[in-house]
């Protein structure tokens, strides 16, 4: 930690911010210190750490001071870390928080995650070494100490050897996993080819394929994650799974829909259903495919798509066109309303409020005034007082 210097934290001319991460603790070697909660910034030239509670406390180290970095995986109760091995202290270093240290490395502990991205970016900066080609302000000192080279050779060899061993071990694991993955993919590929062939035959009606068999086929595709090539079939969309799901959804969504005026956007439904499930979540496509079947299964909900592309689930008993009439009353009472204002008044999400107003406009009940101050709706006087 004695390589750090106090800094204002402001970037110099020519210095660019690459990535930042909050919730980072600094270790001097293996020792925790008082630098336990800060924002860590990586620029093209430096690593900067600013205390989250006391913004005045800000320290930095030039990237030229770094020899190499390694990752330390998270463990139980332990955050993921990056170990940064450093050159010896520069003789011309500006004052900093530590006068001396017995360690030649520091650790960055990511208590609020973000280690993956930070490591990736830091590795990139260490490879590109942009600080060498981009001159920055005076306060960033670059390690020009000629002694450093010789000292490096001595202490580093042991560390590099250890790293090499670890790398080989990791590589072996990865290559084994990768090999197994490749073999698996080969088999998956065969299935994809087979499914294409079957799909073609269904399309061209070769052989006697029953409706049951088609449904079976679709469930095979679902299991493998192969897109359904039979897009224009007339047997009804989805599989047994989606039918069951549709029925479940009808049960789960009845009350929430009633509580929300009979209508919810599909994203709201996605969040609601998945938060309730906790495990074995639905994919967005599962949800859409199930909802497409609601009407044909004569369930008390239906899927509706607005012109904007927004999709909603409505109770069958819900009539959006009737809601438009009451929306018109509300707008008339107030003279004019934006989607935000209408949403607050009625207690709806802004997204659905806007769709209702747009529908009212489409039906001719409202007129718009589209200016840079926003989109405002007025009762359509052309219609009523025409």
């Amino acid at each position: 930690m004695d390589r750090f210097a106090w800094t204002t934290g402001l970037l110099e001319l020519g210095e660019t911010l690459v990535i930042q991460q909050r919730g980072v603790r600094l270790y001097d070697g293996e020792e925790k210190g008082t630098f336990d909660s800060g924002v860590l910034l990586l620029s093209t030239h430096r690593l900067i750490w600013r205390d989250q509670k006391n913004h005045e406390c800000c320290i930095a180290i030039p990237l030229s001071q770094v020899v190499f970095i390694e990752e330390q995986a998270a463990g139980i109760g332990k955050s993921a870390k990056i170990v940064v091995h450093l050159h010896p202290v520069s003789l011309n270093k500006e004052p900093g928080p530590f006068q001396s240290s017995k360690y030649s490395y520091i650790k960055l502990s990511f208590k609020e995650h973000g280690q993956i991205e930070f490591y990736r970016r830091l590795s990139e900066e260490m490879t590109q070494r942009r600080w060498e080609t981009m001159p920055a302000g005076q306060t960033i000192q670059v390690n020009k100490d000629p002694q450093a080279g010789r000292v490096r050779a001595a202490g580093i060899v042991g560390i590099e050897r250890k790293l090499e061993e670890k790398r080989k071990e990791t590589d072996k694991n990865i290559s084994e996993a990768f090999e197994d993955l490749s073999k698996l993919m080969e088999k998956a590929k065969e299935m994809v080819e087979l499914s294409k062939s079957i799909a073609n035959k269904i399309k061209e009606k070769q052989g006697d394929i029953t409706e049951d068999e088609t449904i079976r086929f679709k469930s095979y595709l679902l299991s493998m994650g192969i897109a359904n090539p039979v897009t224009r079939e007339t047997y009804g969309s989805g599989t047994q799974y989606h039918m069951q799901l549709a029925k479940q959804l009808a049960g789960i969504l009845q009350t929430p829909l009633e509580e929300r005026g009979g209508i919810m956007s599909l994203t709201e439904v996605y969040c609601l259903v998945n938060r309730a499930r906790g495990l074995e979540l639905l994919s967005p496509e599962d949800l859409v495919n199930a909802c497409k079947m609601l009407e044909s299964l004569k369930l008390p909900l239906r899927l509706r798509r607005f012109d904007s592309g927004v999709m909603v689930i409505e109770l069958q008993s819900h009539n959006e066109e009737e809601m438009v009439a009451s929306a018109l009353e509300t707008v008339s009472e107030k003279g004019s309303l934006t989607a935000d204002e209408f949403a607050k008044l009625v207690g709806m999400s802004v997204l659905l409020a806007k769709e209702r107003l747009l529908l009212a406009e489409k039906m001719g009940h409202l007129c718009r005034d589209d200016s840079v101050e926003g989109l405002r709706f007025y009762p359509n006087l052309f219609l009523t007082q025409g």
Partner: protein
Amino acid sequence: QAKYKERGTVLAEDQLAQMSKQLDMFKTNLEEFASKHKQEIRKNPKFRVQFQDMCATIGVDPLASGKGFWSEMLGVGDFYYELGVQIIEVCLALKHRNGGLITLEELHQQVLKGRGKFAQDVSQDDLLRAIKKLKVLGNGFGIIPVGGTYLIQSVPAELNMDHTVVLQLAEKKGYVTVSEIKTSLKWETERAKQVLEHLLKEGMAWLDTQAAGEPQYWLPALFTELYSQEITPEEAKEAIP
């Protein structure tokens, strides 16, 4: 029921039976793979990327359904679908500030904050894949490349090539002016103004008329990146229906 087989052609039913058998075998292979490497996928984002890329190459989407083998046995599904929920919530909470545009970096920061200490770390690649899946919900999710990163759109506003190109121009400084657009893109004033007005109306740009020289159009999505602000409790409430 006469089944006639032409020379060299196999009937669909026969192929279906063959597929059923292969499927069972594949399921077993996948179970074996999962027992050895499930942790690797969970902990190693690079391996996740490789896995996704290989699936894409052969025409398989492991995230298409929670009922798919990949999701069930490797657990990749829940990871991405839950991430989807978190992404939706963050975007909803911040929409009034940035009009529904947010940088991938800021989204990443906010999602990590929301996940809490004990959750698994996620990479930006993970976020992008989750977002691609969310598009099908019709809420206007989109990914716009700008500078070296991406802007994530989460509202059904129409953003065509003209809008995108201006966003890319604005990315460098966080704002853009009519003159800059005319100089860099060689457009007429009218075209530049139309694009900027559209962004203003959608709440994605704010107008600074007091800037020295000419008015500046700022993108809140870009200038909050450096000062990752907290999501207030009121904003969080807006996000949960």
